[in-house]
């Protein structure tokens, strides 16, 4: 029965971009004969008859707020959640030496992320969807996450669309649940970000495994654009029809709760938990760039009541150029210092990297990175309102591979660049 279920889900996925009524009738009928449990509608949906009172949700459960505004129909066959995010930030950075044409000081307000997310389920709770848009500092809304997911059993699922690829833990954690104002430069370099494709995942109490097959992902070296204002959004230019990637991640959680690992912040109510992750990614681009590369990462998260630690290492190897490999690592920790362990969190992070890439496809471009960042979070209301401030100092020059102007780190030719950032974040 499970294999039939999968077969049918695959058939549905093939037609996922078409309106429901465009699915060939004979295909639906054939599937219905094999699996009567699947009630896929081939006609307009009608609510249940009045006599099915036991299935009708009370009004208070049909709409309200539960980590997002929601609305459901009376028999819970459809739901819609609405979430939003605002990150309003001020950045001041100073670089002792900068390329010609730039100033040593850089400062501005910015709306780092403005997100509007719609999600929910349809037909039954095993079919879910996410439609997420995001505007970066450039103010233009673009698709962030858009996918349809199908839960096959309680612990296995598949999804198709555009989603966060299962590779780097720091990228998989929402930007709203980071420890510092912004993710590390190391994670931005090695991240596979979002990509369009399919994913399969399975999870139990201790293990979680995800594997994805997608178009090539937003890339490390050659495709890094330090001035890209909305880097969270997938770089569709890279999805050129001649590239593909395979990405997988395995997580082991000997103790702790999955829910408590959704963020880098461990409030006082959290239990002691340990999470170990390992991931690998491969991509091939057969167009003129002819890129082939492999990446890997390992990470460990150990946290408890009011404290959290995280360390990771990552590498990427350009398989077309033996001398083109990049390495990075980071370690960070956070500690709540107020009596209730839920309001004031101090943190610090150190990141290190060494990139050897072929930006110009001719000579390797070797760049080192060594940055320390420290600051605090003030939770006005946890999960909803947070003020974060941090200060970062670079012990090295910041090369083009690592620089990220949007987050304050500009290309510099001398060590000693520093960045101060303060951010008010609102999540609904």
């Amino acid at each position, binding site marked *: 029965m499970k294999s039939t279920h999968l077969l049918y889900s695959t058939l549905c996925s093939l037609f996922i971009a078409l309106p429901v009524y465009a699915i060939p009738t004979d295909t639906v009928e054939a599937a219905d004969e094999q699996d009567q449990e699947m009630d896929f509608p081939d006609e307009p949906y009608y609510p249940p008859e009045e006599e099915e009172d036991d299935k009708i949700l009370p009004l208070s459960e049909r709409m309200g707020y539960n980590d997002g505004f929601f609305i459901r129909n009376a028999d819970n066959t459809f739901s819609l959640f609405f979430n939003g995010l605002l990150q309003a930030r001020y950045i001041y950075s100073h670089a002792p030496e900068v390329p010609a044409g730039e100033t040593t000081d850089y400062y501005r307000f*910015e709306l780092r992320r403005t997100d509007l997310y719609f999600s929910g389920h349809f037909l039954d709770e095993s079919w879910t969807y996410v439609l997420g848009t995001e505007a970066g500092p450039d103010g233009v809304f673009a698709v962030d996450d858009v996918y349809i997911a199908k839960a096959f059993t309680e612990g296995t699922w598949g999804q198709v669309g555009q989603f966060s690829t299962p590779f780097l833990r720091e990228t998989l954690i929402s930007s709203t649940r980071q420890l510092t104002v912004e993710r590390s430069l190391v994670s931005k370099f090695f991240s596979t970000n979002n990509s369009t494709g399919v994913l399969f995942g399975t999870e139990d109490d201790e293990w979680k495994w995800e594997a994805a097959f997608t178009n090539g992902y937003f890339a490390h070296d050659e495709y890094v654009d330090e001035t890209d204002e909305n880097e969270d959004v997938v770089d569709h230019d890279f999805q050129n029809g001649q590239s593909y990637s395979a990405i997988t991640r395995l997580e082991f959680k000997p103790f702790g709760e999955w829910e408590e690992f959704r963020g880098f912040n461990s409030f006082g109510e959290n239990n002691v938990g340990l999470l170990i992750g390992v991931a690998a990614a491969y991509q091939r681009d057969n167009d003129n760039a002819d890129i082939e590369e492999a990446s890997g990462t390992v990470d460990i998260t150990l946290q408890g009541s009011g404290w959290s630690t995280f360390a990771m290492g990552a590498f990427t190897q350009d398989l077309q150029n033996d001398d083109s490999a990049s390495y990075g690592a980071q370690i960070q920790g956070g500690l709540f210092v107020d009596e209730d362990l839920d309001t004031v969190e101090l943190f610090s992070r150190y990141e290190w990297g060494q990139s050897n890439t072929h930006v110009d496809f001719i000579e390797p471009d070797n760049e080192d990175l060594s940055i320390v960042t420290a600051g605090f979070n003030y939770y006005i209301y946890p999960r909803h309102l947070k003020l974060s401030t941090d200060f970062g100092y670079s012990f090295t020059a910041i090369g083009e591979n690592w620089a990220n102007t949007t987050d304050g780190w500009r290309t510099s030719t001398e060590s000693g660049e520093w960045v101060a950032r303060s951010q008010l974040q609102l999540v609904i």
Partner: protein
Amino acid sequence: MKPIIPPAEGETLLPADEYYGYDNGFFIHTADNFFSLEINGMTQARYDYSVIKEQPDDYGFQLRRTNLFFSGHVIDDSWKYVVGAQAGPDGTFAVLDAYIVKIFSENSLAQLGQFPTPFLRAYAISVTRQLAVEDSLVAKYFSTRDITGASYLYEQDWFKWQAAVANGYFTPSYDQNQDVIDQEFQNGQSYAVMSRLELKPFGTWKEFRDYNSPYGNEKGLLLGMGIAYQDDQSLLGTQDISGTVDLTFQGSGWSTFAMSAINTDYTNHETTYGAQAQGGVFVDEDQNTVELFSRYEWGQGQQDQDLSLLTSGFNYYIDPRHLKFTADFGYAFSSMGASWADETDGWFETDEKGQWVVRTQLQLVV
């Protein structure tokens, strides 16, 4: 974790029929009113016809603005949010307003994010509440528009003061979605400060939210003045200062407005002046559906580019505040220099006098 405190025993939750509904926007509240969401939308479908001497006529339909707004509060009424997206005629959605508001008292608040700047009265009034099909060219030139920064507002019954510090503000251009801030100008090397003071000897603040004063409104007078300064340390290296004064006087069924503004560019030693006067009158006392209006605007811009423009037309309110049909006719007694021209709204750069524009618009607000 700090809990979201549930209502005390015996404390009344919102009645069920107040959870959701429509009140100048679709809304949904939680029963304890800790969270709220309001959704608004707006579209302006327009047809323009421009006749420019020595040039081909220009005409066509356009969706001048398509807006989606989400707003509400989190945890308590003192923390509010606004996220508004707008698509101009080019059809691309971009952030228009996105800010967080903290209300300190019933008289004061602060906001952080991207919001309308406190300078020109014309820009503080929503595009849905203008008198003509579109704002004046003078207002567009001097406007500091929306900008990313922080502001503070203090208000009493008879005066209102707001000040902001922000990135450098938008400058005139032919951008198709000109309401939306020119992010490229926020280059990390510019800043601006601006402030606006309003005095209201009589009338109500709410009735000054628009230029339209239907029958039933009480008589009101509003005096305003604003000042703005920006400094761009980038390669542009511009420094300029702007000032404006305005007066709004309105009563039951009629409204008048006059303003003037000045901008001095220190770097290029150029000064631009502008002024406008306008009036509207409802002609059907019983129903408040038909409003006639007229506006004259004048300007003297860089490199002696003058502006002299007369616009007249009418509003037909199919449903006040929600559905409005507007038509106007504009005639330029002067040439149209690059500083003033606005192709999106039908005014093209030309050395010839006598350009005229006819515009009709159907506006829907939900």
